């Protein structure tokens, strides 16, 4: 039998011919005709005109013909709703057929006909089929409830189908259970709070029993459902894990991955010292490795998931480096993923082998892969200090190959190595300079220029090198221009005599001839700095840079936790939360790992509780707001992160403590600063010395997330393309208001202001739209007051200034409460200490203290004494306020501390002393 002939009929009058055949008396002829119709349908021809004729063929006892007609119906019923009614009778009759296959077929097809009028008729047959004696019909009916719910959710609820569906979870047939679970899970996803999938220990038990008996697909549905359960305690958690582990030996990779998901999640509940915990960790590795011998597409899915698992629990696969070695014939997507995991697993123990492999890869054909391999060598150097020297020499070898893109990539990573290990490998600069001419990519050029500028004093012809770049200044990309500007200024500060002309040239190029506001602003700032105070300029421009951190591309912890709950799914393949790619409310609810005995959050429970504390600001005093400049970097955030980001726990607190000048509880973590861009900043309070409490892993949200936060001054106008905002929070008659001064420091007119708040712990959101009289002409400033309320999770306003890309900006200066709080605390809590033999002036002292997160709120000079008013907040939420008296020439400082919990005063004083004398 060959059906391909149906594809080839293209003659005219075909429809009429088919019509005639469909009405033929001969069964065979009818069947042939329906096949032809379906073939035409497949290739996209419109055969809807034949609807009545095809429906006429429906009443037959020939199962084969019936199936064909149903296929047609599913396709065209929607476009011919009135005629579809004609089919209803047959459906209803078929649902009563003695043959279970026909009953199931009818109920299955009816659910696929998305016509409102039909759904009414569907209810009765569906109700019967849900209680059918034959399991095949019941399992089909279970799915049909989900179909009906998709068409008309209300109807399903009204008809009580949900309860019947819940009953099916206790069905004797495993496949019915599996389909009921699948249907319920899907329905539950669109009713996040309905508690529809009422998971309790009894249901869990039923599901776990069905798990052993149903088909591979059913096992996946059940495992995916189990993953949503939160066990009551660690014992229940362990017993579920024990019953799920056998699934790790299933031949179906999806069953394995779903089992891994359940185990990864429930493992959180287990105490780490439990023997079983160790056993479980050991059991997880082999199946994950086995997934890598599956077909390449599945390998890809597995690798994307392993990437997450390795980040969450590196111990599982730490000995399995070899299986991630790239094979010559792997598809490129598998190669790239393997490479990623290799770097994550790289450690001192295996670094030699890894480097040898990476070097091998760097000679392959695929450009992307080679680049990534070269970059990986750099990341190894940064991650494993002992290997740095080896990595650098490997990179030099690669540079010798002169392959253009290899050289460029190598230079980019060598720049990072310099930032991690300053003053160690500068001997290679000469080799790098030899390749200057071959660099044609912006990133590589920028990296090279940075190196030349940074080490200008060791490169004899640095001025010539930079000058050569300057010739085509306007053809360069912004990245290169900015870097060139900075590099030449650095050079000038290092060798002022011979480079005066050069610096003037670049400054005028940047400020006068450029349209780019970033560039212009940076140019102006340098210009002003250099002309007013060259010493200050030196301090700013040549300031010691913080070291870059090891891992630059870790997934942000809260997102990682969510993705772990989505192992095996698309979210884990994209490494994005479902809300980023799913429309509507299907499956976008946020999932989180269960709170656990050993997880990171619980190590710092104080941080979490501190986040909940909202202390109302009562009064206002000025403070230095420039710390907060980082907040402006909105224009650099990836779009995905501006959406509602789930916030929880300690992660954001680290950032908050930093920003807040101690008075941070109002501003909330995510305000303006994109949470996703923040490096993980878990505060790690260690009991004992209070000094440790202050020593947060300060993570300010630097745009690239690639280095630890500098405490340098940021210039808002420069970062915001000329828009400068200063502002404050005040409280008028119980309403929180944000008062801002918006200044246009750019050359052009600004219009179309809008404001957007990221979701924050306090639910702060604008109560109304921002009122800015636009346009705002250059150098004009205006005062705006925006009432806020604390109800909205996220408020998003209309697009920002189109001309100047995203220019939203909110800066907040926080200035609050110091005075009020000071007065509020009873005098008996005040204690005074003397710090002796301290030879710092007030500014230096203030800077030092700031490094441990004690922030200066205000400063005044009385009778030759500098008075610094400072505040700090311990991670457990205790506030302390201090007044530091510094008298010029007197090495003894006086600290007055006020705190609601006087016990800590002594400790705070000790840390003051430790820092100031250090």
């Amino acid at each position: 039998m060959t059906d391909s002939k149906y594809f080839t009929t293209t003659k005219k009058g075909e429809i009429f011919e088919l019509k005639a055949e469909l009405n033929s008396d001969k069964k065979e002829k009818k069947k042939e005709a329906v096949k032809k119709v379906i073939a035409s349908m497949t290739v996209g021809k419109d055969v809807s005109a034949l609807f009545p004729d095809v429906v006429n063929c429906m009443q037959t006892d020939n199962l084969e013909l019936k199936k064909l007609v149903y296929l047609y119906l599913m396709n065209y019923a929607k476009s011919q709703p009135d005629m579809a009614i004609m089919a209803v009778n047959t459906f209803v009759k078929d649902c009563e057929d003695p043959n279970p296959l026909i009953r199931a077929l009818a109920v299955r097809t009816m659910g696929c006909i998305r016509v409102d009028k039909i759904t009414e008729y569907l209810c009765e047959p569906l109700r019967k089929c849900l209680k059918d004696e034959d399991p095949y019909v019941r399992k089909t009916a279970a799915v049909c409830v989900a179909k009906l719910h998709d068409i008309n959710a209300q109807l399903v609820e009204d008809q009580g189908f949900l309860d019947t569906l819940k009953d099916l979870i206790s069905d004797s047939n495993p496949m019915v259970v599996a389909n009921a679970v699948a249907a319920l899970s899907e329905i539950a996803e669109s009713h996040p709070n309905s508690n529809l999938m009422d998971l309790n220990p009894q249901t869990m038990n039923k599901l776990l029993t069905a798990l052993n008996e149903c088909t591979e697909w059913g096992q996946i549905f059940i495992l995916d459902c189990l993953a949503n359960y939160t066990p009551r305690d660690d014992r229940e958690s362990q017993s579920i894990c024990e019953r799920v582990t056998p699934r790790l030996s299933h031949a179906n990779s999806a069953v394995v991955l779903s089992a891994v998901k359940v185990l990864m999640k429930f493992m959180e509940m287990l105490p780490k010292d439990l023997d079983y915990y160790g056993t479980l960790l050991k059991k997880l590795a082999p199946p994950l490795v086995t997934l890598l011998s599956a077909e390449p597409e599945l390998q890809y899915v597995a690798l994307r998931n392993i990437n997450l698992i390795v980040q969450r629990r590196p111990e599982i696969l730490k000995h399995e480096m070899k299986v991630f070695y790239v094979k010559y014939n792997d598809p490129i997507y598998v190669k790239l993923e393997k490479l990623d995991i290799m770097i994550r697993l790289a450690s001192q123990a295996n670094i030699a082998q890894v480097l040898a492999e990476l070097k091998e890869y760097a000679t392959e054909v695929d450009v992307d892969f080679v680049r990534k391999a070269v970059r990986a060598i750099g990341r190894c150097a940064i991650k494993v200090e002992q290997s740095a020297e080896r990595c650098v020499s490997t990179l030099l070898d690669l540079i010798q190959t002169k392959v253009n893109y290899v050289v460029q990539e190598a230079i980019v990573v060598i720049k990072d190595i310099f930032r991690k290990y300053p003053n160690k490998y500068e001997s290679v600069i000469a080799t790098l300079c030899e390749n200057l001419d071959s660099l044609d990519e912006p990133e590589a050029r920028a990296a090279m220029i940075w190196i030349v500028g940074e080490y200008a004093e060791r490169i004899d012809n640095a001025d010539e090198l930079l000058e050569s770049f300057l010739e085509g200044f306007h053809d360069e990309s912004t990245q290169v221009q900015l870097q060139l500007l900075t590099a030449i200024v650095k050079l000038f500060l290092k060798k002022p005599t011979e480079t005066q002309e050069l610096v003037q040239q670049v400054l005028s190029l940047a400020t006068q001839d450029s349209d780019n506001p970033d560039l212009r602003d940076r140019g102006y700032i340098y210009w002003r700095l250099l002309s007013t105070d060259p010493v200050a300029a030196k301090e700013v421009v040549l300031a010691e840079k913080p070291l870059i951190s090891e891992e630059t591309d870790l997934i942000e912890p809260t997102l990682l936790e969510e993705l772990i709950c989505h192992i095996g799914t698309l979210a884990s393949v994209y490494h994005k939360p479902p809300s980023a790619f799913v429309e509507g409310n299907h499956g976008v609810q946020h999932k989180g790992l269960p709170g656990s005995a050993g997880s990171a959050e619980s190590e710092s429970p104080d941080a979490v509780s501190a986040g909940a504390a909202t202390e109302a600001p009562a009064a206002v005093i000025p403070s230095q707001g420039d710390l907060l400049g980082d907040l402006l970097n909105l224009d650099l955030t990836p779009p995905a992160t501006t959406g509602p980001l789930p916030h929880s726990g300690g992660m954001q607190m680290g950032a908050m403590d930093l920003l807040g000048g101690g008075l941070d509880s109002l501003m909330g973590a995510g305000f303006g600063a994109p949470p996703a861009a923040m490096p993980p900043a878990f505060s790690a309070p260690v009991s004992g010395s209070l000094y440790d409490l202050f020593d947060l892993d300060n993570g300010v949200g630097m745009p690239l997330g690639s280095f630890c936060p500098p405490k340098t001054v940021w210039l808002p106008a420069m970062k915001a393309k000329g828009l400068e905002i200063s502002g404050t929070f005040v409280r008028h008659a119980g309403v929180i208001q944000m008062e801002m001064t918006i200044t246009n420091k750019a050359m052009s007119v600004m219009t179309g202001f809008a404001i957007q708040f990221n979701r924050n712990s306090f639910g702060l959101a604008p109560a109304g739209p921002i009122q800015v009289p636009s346009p705002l002409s250059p150098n004009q400033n205006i005062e705006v007051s925006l009432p806020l309320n604390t109800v909205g999770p996220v408020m998003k306003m209309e697009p920002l200034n189109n001309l100047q890309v995203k220019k939203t900006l909110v800066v907040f200066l926080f200035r609050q409460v110091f005075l009020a709080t000071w007065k509020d605390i009873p005098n008996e809590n005040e204690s005074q200490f003397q710090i002796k033999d301290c030879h710092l002036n007030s500014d230096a002292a203030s800077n030092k203290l700031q490094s441990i997160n004690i922030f200066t709120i205000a400063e005044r000079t009385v009778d030759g004494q500098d008075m610094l008013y400072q505040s700090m907040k311990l991670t457990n939420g205790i506030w302390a306020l201090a007044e530091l008296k510094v008298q010029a020439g007197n090495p003894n400082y006086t600290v007055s501390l006020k705190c609601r919990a006087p016990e800590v005063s002594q400790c705070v004083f000790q840390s003051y002393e430790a820092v100031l004398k250090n």
Partner: protein
Amino acid sequence: MIGGLFIYNHKGEVLISRVYRDDIGRNAVDAFRVNVIHARQQVRSPVTNIARTSFFHVKRSNIWLAAVTKQNVNAAMVFEFLYKMCDVMTAYFGKISEENIKNNFVLIYELLDEILDFGYPQNSETGALKTFITQQGIKGQLQTKEEQSQITSQVTGQIGWRREGIKYRRNELFLDVLESVNLLMSPQGQVLSAHVSGRVVMKSYLSGMPECKFGMNDKIVIDKQGKGGASDDAGKSGKQSIAIDDCTFHQCVRLSKFDSERSISFIPPDGEYELMRYRTTKDIILPFRVIPLVREVGRTKLEVKVVIKSNFKPSLLAQKIEVRIPTPLNTSGVQVICMKGKAKYKASENAIVWKIKRMAGMKESQISAEIELLPTNDKKKWARPPISMNFEVPFAPSGLKVRYLKVFESKLNYSDHDVIKWVRYIGRSGIYETRC
């Protein structure tokens, strides 16, 4: 769940299109053609997101299969399903080709209707499907009521892979232990990575619902028995047992029993199926060792010498040996001398292919070649792809041995002794590469 399933030919013409969910529009079919099939560069990911619609795609010969969804589906399941779909189609009409698909499109639609309901995969065991799929199968009208309920209980039942009432005059089973050895070796002869991935394939022609138990020289099992039994026996068997890193089983195997007792018991499907897969990395017998020597003589000549040594019992014969030595792209001519077999330079594949029909154990053979190169001003060095090897040997390189396969059928009157059993071991090369 899966919103739709499309099958395309290599030109991007739709052969089969079945939409399961309302959120998948007709334009999804075209989006995939334009963005993936007609895309300029090679496929960079098997999952492509186009306008918030995700496409999972696999390619079999010239045919593209794409599953489409707009939800956060279980990605591993979708791919597993696509492979399964290919298996089912192959079982029905052989090779997946444009012609076969066009010839069987009605069948494919019927299958798709049955094995995927609202995007949820349903029973997809070919054995079960053949009992009630009408196209090329039995005709609906002929079934009696008993037959119908038998079908439905099989399709939905615990043993969905086997039907009742199978009878054979001669009860027979065949076990094939098929292994592929994978090796990556450095030019100095250091093993960078090596593993065996093996499969136990069973062909069963057994009557009734037989209960089977499979045993092999798994180290964990042998050690456990050794502890209980005589001590000298443990010492002896300890050597012969192998450490299995991991194994996965056909869905007929009772996994919980394996997890608790490490015993493999099951009721097999009828006919051919894959009982288990396993992987070992320890004490692998590497059947061949390749020793490469590449010397660049000036800029226009390469001298290559490759020695292969066979490393197994002299009484055994390896077959279908093929060594592939890559040559640079600018090769202009090659002279080859080999002691055994035939060697040829294949310009289209940029390689010297050396074939030997048979080779006994503990032997060695060598090939030397002179490669003339065209002078180029290309600065880029030749990447030197690894030398790869293919072969087939009549033993299991992992050392796996089948100890027993017991068959019990209590209802019918045949016993384990009456079953005729055949066991065969075949070791093949997987990716067997030596860098040069």
